[in-house]
């Protein structure tokens, strides 16, 4: 379970780990910082995928917002316009009826109390909404009254509607309580008596009818429709603006002949749509302003729900995109990383091969040049020795002979080195034979059997019987295995072990590994291990050619040799050899 979690995590968040022995390869890599490339890839892909998506959504939101604003302004304006027509008609109709009555009846008949009562009755039947009717003389005294209140003889000189009426021939008052202490509207018309004096006929209208007419235009719970006067005082009840002041909490809109609508912010900071119209009858203007107020939030509700759904969809799409892009980027960059690691390894190996080849050429040249003078020294020293040995007087001088022998011995040692050097550099013809690797390894182990017993070294050989026989040069392969086993024996202490394993590898190759648990090789030495003359042994104990010759031999057999080692843990040499031999080209 944890393994699956880990593999998923590494698929999403790859580590691009470079193991210790790969660190020196970093200068062969095409890129250095894979984490950065990975991050950049994800950033660029996500940006190019998400930015257009988000921008288009934003533009779409803007368009919707704008069209909703326009739509709600239009609708509010239409409601206000319709309501205005109804209110205007309501007032005009009653003013016209009153004017007709005055013109038809004349002062004398109207002041007859019985007649006035009849007129009121007829008007109530014809138009409704009237409470009472009275005739007022130009000095403000009420001369006749018909209706439920006893207001005869009252003086109206100070009433603003009365003064308006005398001035403008007709008037529509604000809604006020007056002497009767009940909210009402007064409509009045002025006329002239036969004697030339003016008089006023007044009708009181029920506000209930007006309020009912307005309410019928109210649309939904987020809308409000009411009348205010030019000072902003409420004339009919409002569901938005309540309270002691009886005043509308927004500024009185500027005068306009036509119905208008606009966006406003109310006292609590909420957006509202306001439609308004200054009410004016054909006969006389009034002090009413019709107000339609709608809460924008309420109108937006459907759109806000839709927007929430779109946002969810956007969020989920973005999430899927991010996951897919992250997985794809991780996979791709990881592949690049692995390919680059392989390339770096190959390049490092090629460079090492190149280096070794040039060292080999140099070594061969040196060996050639040194061998001739060496042979001459040998012969000359030999001749001197011959002279002494063959002439009786020096024959028994041990010191002389010792000295000459040491010269000849030194020359022999030099000769061995030059021969090995030549062996390292030179390409011999490879003589291919079919070889059973298991037999060959056990042959080599036999050389060391005695030493292993004596030093208590355990040798494990793990070579399956089914391993295919390989076609290669017997002598060279034997030399390779012998060199490596020798090397291992020198590296391990008594009581250690040596592990020899062979497996058939992919690509028709056999993989032979020789592992010891000896002292190990430091990382620094590991790089030079195949170079000629590199040795960590004491002077005179090793020529430093063993492994470089082994390297050369493996190359000749078209194989490959690698080494892994850790200080104190041991060393593993791995040789891979082709199962079928390639044709050697002679150099």
């Amino acid at each position: 379970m944890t393994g699956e979690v880990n593999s998923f995590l590494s698929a999403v968040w790859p580590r691009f780990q470079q193991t210790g022995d790969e660190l020196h390869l970093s200068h062969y890599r095409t890129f250095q910082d894979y984490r950065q490339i990975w991050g950049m890839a994800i950033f660029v892909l996500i940006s190019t995928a998400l930015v257009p998506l988000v921008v288009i959504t934003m533009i779409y939101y803007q368009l919707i917002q704008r069209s909703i604003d326009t739509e709600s302004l239009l609708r509010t304006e239409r409601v206000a316009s319709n309501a205005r027509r109804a209110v205007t008609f309501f007032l005009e109709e009653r003013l016209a009826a009153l004017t007709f009555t005055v013109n038809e009846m004349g002062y004398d008949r109207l002041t007859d109390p019985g007649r006035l009562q009849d007129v009121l009755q007829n008007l109530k039947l014809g138009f409704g909404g009237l409470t009472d009717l009275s005739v007022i003389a130009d000095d403000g005294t009420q001369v006749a009254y018909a209706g439920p209140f006893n207001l005869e003889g009252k003086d109206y000189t100070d009433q603003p509607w009365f003064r308006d009426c005398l001035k403008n021939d007709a008037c529509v008052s604000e809604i006020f309580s007056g002497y009767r202490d009940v909210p009402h509207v007064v409509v009045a018309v002025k006329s002239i008596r036969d004697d030339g004096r003016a008089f006023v006929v007044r009708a009181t209208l029920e506000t209930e009818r007006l309020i009912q007419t307005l309410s019928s235009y109210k649309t939904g719970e987020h809308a409000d429709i009411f009348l205010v006067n030019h000072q902003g005082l409420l004339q009919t009840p409002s569901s938005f603006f309540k309270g002691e002041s009886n005043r509308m909490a927004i500024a009185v809109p500027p005068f306009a002949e036509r119905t208008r609508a606009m966006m406003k912010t109310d006292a609590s900071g909420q957006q509202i749509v306001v439609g308004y119209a200054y009410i004016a009858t054909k006969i006389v203007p009034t002090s009413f302003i019709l107000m339609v107020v709608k809460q924008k939030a309420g109108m937006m509700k459907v759109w806000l729900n839709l927007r929430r759904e779109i946002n969810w969809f956007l969020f989920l799409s973005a999430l899927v995109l991010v996951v897919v892009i992250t997985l794809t980027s991780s996979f791709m960059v990881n592949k690049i990383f692995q390919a680059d690691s392989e390339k770096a390894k190959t390049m490092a190996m090629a460079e090492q091969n190149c280096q070794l080849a040039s060292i080999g050429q140099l070594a061969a040249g040196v060996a050639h040049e040194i061998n001739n003078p060496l042979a001459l020294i040998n012969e000359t020293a030999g001749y001197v020795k011959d002279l002494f040995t063959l002439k009786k007087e020096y024959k028994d001088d041990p010191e002389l002979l010792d000295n000459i022998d040491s010269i000849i011995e030194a020359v022999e040692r030099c000769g061995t080195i030059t021969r090995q050097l030549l062996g390292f550099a030179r390409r011999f013809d490879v003589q291919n034979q079919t070889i059973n690797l298991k037999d060959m390894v056990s042959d080599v182990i036999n050389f060391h059997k005695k030493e292993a017993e004596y030093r208590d070294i355990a040798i494990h050989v793990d070579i399956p019987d089914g391993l295919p026989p390989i076609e290669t040069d017997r002598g060279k392969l034997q030399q390779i295995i012998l060199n490596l086993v020798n090397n291992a024996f020198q590296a391990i202490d008594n009581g250690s072990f040596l592990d020899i394993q062979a497996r058939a590898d992919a690509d028709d190759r056999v993989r032979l590994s020789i592992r010891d648990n000896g002292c190990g090789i430091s990382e620094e030495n590991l790089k030079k291990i195949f170079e000629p003359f590199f040795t960590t042994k004491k002077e005179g104990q090793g020529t430093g050619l063993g492994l470089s010759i082994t390297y050369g031999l493996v190359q000749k057999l078209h194989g490959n040799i690698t080494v892994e080692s850790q200080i104190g843990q041991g060393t593993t040499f791995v040789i891979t050899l082709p199962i079928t031999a390639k044709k050697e080209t002679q150099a």
Partner: protein
Amino acid sequence: MKHPDILIVDDERRYADMLARRLKLRGMVCKVCYDGQTAIDCVKQDFYPMVILDLRLPDLYGTEVLKRMKTSRPEIEVIILTGHGTEMDREQCMAVGAHAFMNKPLDIDRLMGIMDRLEEQAP
């Protein structure tokens, strides 16, 4: 004289002379040649039972010299003594009929051993 005459062929004059001197100390009479053609001519003119032949000669390669010597005198015994002999050289020389293949620097005792054995086999 215990041993028959010997022809030494080597382009390194001082080496050839020194070897001749060492063999002379051991009772052998040697003739020295410094190039391949002279050596072939010598073998044609006189009989040398044994030739010590270097491979790297200024005019001809040792194997070629060996072939021609063996062609003109098949009974001649040739010991190859070379500083830079490869496995291939050894195989070629032995195939053409060299008696032995030795590397420089020379182990004189080994050479003497070979000569002694030749002597014993000789009729």
